[in-house]
């Protein structure tokens, strides 16, 4: 295959499956769930056609799928899976175990609303709920980012300073099922970029000396705290590694990725913070408002865990009013989950914007440009009046 980049039309799910084919993991264990099913379904065809060397484990539930990935990863294999919503929820127990045992599993997650009521469409309630599980979380704005993020995720997860699992997300149906142009790297480029799984010396010495080891033993009051402290440190170190891998990937692909993406924030008086596919719509709205002379901009959060506190403060410190777009509700009588994290990031800074929270798009509710225009008009009103009349507003719900 040529080293030339190939432009193809792919859905988010196809892009994830293609990335997995090129990564060629040792083990994929999975259970189907809408709208993520296609990822592993397409991948299982690659396995059947002998295009990958992967051992495919069709598990009887997501809990088992993640358990199988944990077992494989603990043996030093490169393990991957994909899921969504209820599937992610069923993996809950194992998510914490994967992180706590420092296993670099990579998972494609298609964001979907959690039941009840049952709903198969996009919001971020599933992945937001896993935000304190010790998984690195990377959100994708479009199909290209989903592909690029998944390839980088392998290197981030397996870096010896990190050894943490990574989930890369797309928005259900909006990205998972929509056809977009994708610039694919060649198989060789991806295979060289991800390289072989780095050896875990602790696991390897056990094999060499033929000495059995115990992984995940009872830890209790004496050692649990120290082990959790190590996970916290790994998440801190992940920040350096994510930047490092981002630079390396930019050299390979020409596409640069950072923790956040500022968009037209120069001298912006009002801005929104947004994650995932709505970023594209919001950029359009920013462009049209800028064209009519309004000083508005946007900050996209790509990496949510580790939380890019410094980068957010740096990007938004001079903006007067910021609207945080939460595609999940915190159900805490205050706000969605993104709002308090950004508010906390600014707490110790003298120069900080006024913050308002906008909960939008739950259960796949469409997010047309006019909804984002409403958000900006609320923000601009605060910039002129200086008065903030609410903390949280529900956008797009029938009042």
């Amino acid at each position: 295959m040529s080293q030339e980049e190939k432009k193809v039309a792919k859905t988010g799910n196809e892009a994830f499956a293609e990335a997995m084919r090129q990564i060629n993991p040792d083990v994929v264990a999975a259970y189907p769930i809408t709208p993520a099913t296609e990822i592993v379904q397409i991948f299982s065809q690659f396995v059947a056609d002998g295009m990958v060397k992967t051992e495919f484990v069709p598990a009887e539930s997501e809990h088992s799928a993640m358990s199988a990935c944990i077992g494989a990863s603990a043996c030093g294999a490169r393990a991957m899976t994909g899921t969504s919503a209820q599937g992610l929820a069923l993996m809950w127990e194992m998510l914490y175990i994967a992180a706590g045992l420092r296993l670099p599993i990579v998972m494609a997650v298609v964001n979907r609303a959690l039941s009840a009521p049952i709903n198969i469409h996009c919001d971020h309630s599933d992945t937001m709920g896993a935000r304190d599980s010790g998984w690195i979380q990377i959100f994708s704005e479009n199909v290209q980012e989903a592909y690029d993020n998944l390839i980088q995720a392998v290197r981030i997860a397996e870096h010896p300073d990190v050894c943490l699992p990574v989930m890369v997300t797309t928005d259900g149906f909006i990205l998972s099922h929509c056809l977009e142009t994708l610039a694919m790297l060649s198989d060789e480029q991806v295979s060289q970029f991800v390289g072989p799984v780095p050896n875990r010396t602790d696991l390897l010495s056990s094999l060499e000396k033929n000495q059995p080891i115990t992984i995940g033993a009872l830890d209790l009051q004496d050692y649990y705290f120290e082990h959790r402290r190590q996970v916290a440190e790994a998440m801190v170190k992940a920040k350096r590694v994510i930047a490092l891998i981002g630079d390396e990937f930019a050299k390979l692909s020409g596409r640069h990725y950072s923790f956040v993406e500022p968009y037209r924030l120069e001298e912006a008086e009002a801005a929104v913070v947004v994650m995932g596919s709505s970023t594209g719509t919001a950029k359009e709205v920013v462009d049209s408002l800028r064209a009519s002379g309004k000083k508005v901009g946007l900050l996209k959060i790509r990496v949510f865990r580790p939380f890019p506190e410094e980068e957010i403060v740096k990007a938004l410190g001079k903006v007067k009013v910021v609207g945080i777009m939460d595609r999940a509700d915190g159900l805490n009588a205050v706000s969605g989950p993104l709002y308090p994290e950004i508010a906390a990031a600014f707490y110790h800074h003298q120069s900080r914007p006024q913050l308002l929270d906008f909960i939008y798009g739950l259960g796949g509710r469409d997010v047309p440009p006019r909804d984002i225009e409403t958000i900006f008009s609320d923000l601009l009103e605060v910039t002129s009046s200086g008065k903030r009349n609410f903390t949280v507003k529900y956008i797009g719900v029938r009042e």
Partner: protein
Amino acid sequence: MKTAEEKKSTWKELPEGDVLEGASSLQFKTGNWRSIRPVHHPEKCIHCLLCWIACPDSAIKVKDGRFQTIDYDYCKGCGICSHECPKKAIEMVPEKK
């Protein structure tokens, strides 16, 4: 069990990911939990070894296909052996007696 004087590793010294030597459960004497004790009556025993299969702590010791003894260091007194024994050859008695 660990002794009080043992120097405990800090989070920086400890191997990452909760990996330790194999068979570490041998250091954990689950027999400390026991409140009722299985007592074996050899005269009733037919050496079917159902107790040995069922014991969750491998506390039933077998030699040459015959019941030998119960390892009270690890027997936690769950009573499964007694329940499974077809000959009622294992009796559960309170520890305090």
